[in-house]
C-alpha cells in the first residue's frame, strides 16, 4: 500500500524526460492557434499598412509607403485619437474606482457569501455585448424607466440617449467585471487582520486604503487599468448606439476606413497605431507598478 504511493511521484518525475517530444506535440494546438489567429493576421495588417491603396476597387496594390501613417496626422484623425484616448482613460478611471470599491466590498464579506456576489458581477457578462448595449438604450431612452421615474418625481427629464453619460454608463457596465476581478484576486490574498491592525493604529478609511490596501492590491489595480483602458480603444458599437455617433472612436474610424472608405492600407495603419498604443500603455503601467514597488522598498530613510 504505502510502497505504491511512495513510488508514484518517482514515476511522475520520469515522465517528462521520456516524453519531451510528446510535450512539444501537446503544445502544438496552442501554438498553431496563436500563429494562425494572432501572428498571421497581425503580419498581414502590418504589411498592408505600408501598402499603396487601390483608389478604384479598394483593397491594396502592394508597394511600400509611409503615406498611410503620415495621413493619420490629419487633424480629423488626430482628434479622434485624442478623444479615444481620453474616453478610454475616463472609462478606465471610472471602472477602477467602482471596481476597486466593489472588489473591496466583496472581499470583506463572509467567505461563504463572496461567490454569490461575484456571480452577480459576472451575470451581465454572460449576455451578448450588443444586448447589453441595447438594454441601456431602453433604460435611459425616451419612454424608458429613467425618464418615467424622473418625470413622476417632477423633474423635467428627457431621453439620455444619445449622450456622453449614456456612453460612460454603458462602458462602465461593459467593463466592470474585468475591472473587479483582478483587484478582487489581489485583495483576497491580503490578511484580513491588517485592516484591524490599521484601524487599531489610528488609520481611518482613507488612510487604511492609501497606506495598506491600495499598495497591496497594486498588481490587481494595474491589471484592471490595462484590461479596461486598452480594450476601450477598440470599442466601436457603444459610441454609435448610445453616443449618437457624433464623436467616433478609433474603433469606429478603423471600421469606417475599412468598410466605407475602402482604404485598407489606412485602416491597417490606424490599427497598427492602436496596437502600438496598447502595447505602450501596457508597458507604461507595468513600469509604473515596478517603480512603485521599488520605491516602497526604499521608503524608509
Amino acid at each position, binding site marked *: 500500500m504505502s510502497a505504491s504511493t511512495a513510488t508514484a511521484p518517482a514515476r511522475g518525475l520520469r515522465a517528462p524526460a521520456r516524453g519531451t517530444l510528446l510535450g512539444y506535440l501537446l503544445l502544438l494546438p496552442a501554438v498553431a492557434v496563436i500563429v494562425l489567429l494572432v501572428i498571421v493576421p497581425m503580419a498581414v495588417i502590418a504589411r498592408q499598412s505600408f501598402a499603396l491603396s487601390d483608389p478604384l476597387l479598394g483593397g491594396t496594390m502592394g508597394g511600400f509607403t509611409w503615406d498611410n501613417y503620415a495621413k493619420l496626422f490629419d487633424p480629423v484623425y488626430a482628434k479622434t485619437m485624442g478623444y479615444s484616448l481620453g474616453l478610454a482613460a475616463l472609462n478606465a478611471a471610472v471602472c477602477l474606482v467602482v471596481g476597486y470599491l466593489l472588489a473591496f466590498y466583496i472581499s470583506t464579506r463572509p467567505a461563504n457569501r463572496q461567490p454569490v456576489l461575484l456571480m452577480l458581477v459576472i451575470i451581465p457578462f454572460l449576455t451578448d455585448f450588443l444586448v447589453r448595449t441595447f438594454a441601456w438604450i431602453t433604460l435611459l431612452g425616451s419612454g424608458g424607466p429613467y425618464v418615467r421615474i424622473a418625470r413622476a418625481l417632477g423633474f423635467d427629464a428627457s431621453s439620455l440617449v444619445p449622450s456622453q453619460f449614456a456612453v460612460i454608463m454603458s462602458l462602465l457596465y461593459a467593463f466592470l467585471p474585468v475591472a473587479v476581478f483582478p483587484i478582487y484576486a489581489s485583495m483576497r490574498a491580503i490578511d484580513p*487582520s491588517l485592516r*484591524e491592525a490599521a484601524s487599531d*493604529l*489610528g488609520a481611518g478609511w482613507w488612510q487604511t486604503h492609501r*497606506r495598506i490596501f491600495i499598495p497591496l492590491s497594486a498588481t490587481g489595480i494595474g491589471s484592471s487599468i490595462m484590461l479596461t483602458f486598452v480594450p476601450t480603444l477598440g470599442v466601436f458599437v457603444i459610441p454609435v448606439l448610445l453616443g449618437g455617433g457624433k464623436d467616433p472612436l478609433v474603433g469606429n474610424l478603423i471600421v469606417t476606413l475599412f468598410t466605407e472608405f475602402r482604404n485598407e492600407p489606412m485602416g491597417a495603419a490606424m490599427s497598427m497605431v492602436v496596437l502600438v498604443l496598447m502595447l505602450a500603455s501596457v508597458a507604461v503601467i507595468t513600469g509604473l507598478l515596478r517603480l512603485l*514597488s521599488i520605491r516602497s*522598498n526604499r521608503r*524608509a530613510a
Partner: protein
Amino acid sequence: MTQTSAVRLRGITKSFGSNLVVEPLDLEIGRNEFFSILGPSGCGKTTLMRMITGFETPTAGSVELDGKTVDRVPTRQRDLNMLFQSYALFPHLSVYENVAFELRVRKTAKAELDRRVREALALVRLEDFPQRKPSELSGGQRQRVALARAVVGRPAVVLLDEPLGALDQKLRKEMQFELKRMQREVGITFIYVTHDQEEALTMSDRIAVMSKGRVLQVAGPTEIYDAPNSRFVASFIGSCNLIDAVMSSADTVEVAGLGPVPATVTGGFATGTQVVVAVRPERMTLTDRPTEGSFAGVISERVFLGDEWTYHVKTGGTELTVRVPSGETSAALATLPEGGQVWVSWPTAAGRVLPADDTTSPSLIGSPA
C-alpha cells in the same frame, strides 16, 4: 480611591447568534498592571479582548477606558493597541515603516517620528535592520516588530493575544522575560491573553482564569495557585489531586475508603454536600511507615523526572499523585518497588475544599490588587 482603573468592564457579554461566548462579566484592570487572561483554547479570551479594542461590539454591557465609557468610540480613537496573534505586520512596509505607521497616520513631525521609531526599535532590540521586510525576519523578530509597533504611540493599554504562541520553547522563555522587562520600562498596562498557565504565572500581576466564557477567578499568581476557588482553576493551573468527598460536618470532609481527610473549609457547605478536596502533589508527603494522620497506599507507578519523582499511589478507592524532590527521597523509599506499601499525608492547610461542580461556584468580580 481616586485613581481610575485603566480598563473597566461592566456586565460585558457576547453571543454569536445563539452561541453565548462570553457570559456577563465585570472586571477591573489597574494602571500599569500586567494582567493575564488565562484559559483553554476556545474559552472566549480573544472575543473578550476584541470587545475591549472595539473590534467586536458587546451584546450587552459596557467598556470603560481610564474612567470614560468608550462604547461609541471606534477602535482607532481608543487609547490602546493590540498585538495580534498573527502579528498582522504590513508585508509591503519595512520594519521601520511598520513601526512608524501609527505616527505617520497621526501626522507626527518628522524628527519626532524618527526619534520615537528608533526608541521603540531599541526597546525591542531590533535596531540593526530597519529596512528589512517582515518576510525577511524570523518569527521572534516579527513578534518584536509587532510589539514595537504597538507601543510606539505610547498607548495606555496594550493587548497581547497569545503573542508567544508561534515561537519555539527557548525563544518563548526569552520573550517572556523581555515582555515583562518592557512592560516595566514603558509603564503601560498589558492585557495578556494566553492558554499557557506557566506563562501566566511567571509574568502576571494578576490573572483571570476563564473557562467556557466565564471568568472563574481573578487573583494574583500565588493565590491562584495556592487557593484556587474551583475545580477547574485547581486542575488547569499546575497539577492537582482532586479527591471526591462529602461534607461530614460544617468543617470536616470525608472521603469514601479513607475516612476524614485534612482540609480547610472556606465556603459555607451544608453537611452532606458533595465536594472535592484539592491537594497539590508537592504538598503531599510520602513515607515508608505510618505517620500521624497518614493514609496507607500502594505505589502503582513511579516516574523519575530528574529533579523529582512522581509517585502514583493507590489509597482506598482513590489514585493520588505525589511529588517528591529527588534529594528528599529517603533510601528506604527509593528502594521500594512498584506495588510497595507507602503512607501519604498532607497538612490541613494544603487541602482545599471546593464545590464538586463548577457551575455552582460564584463568578468572581475582580478589582485592582
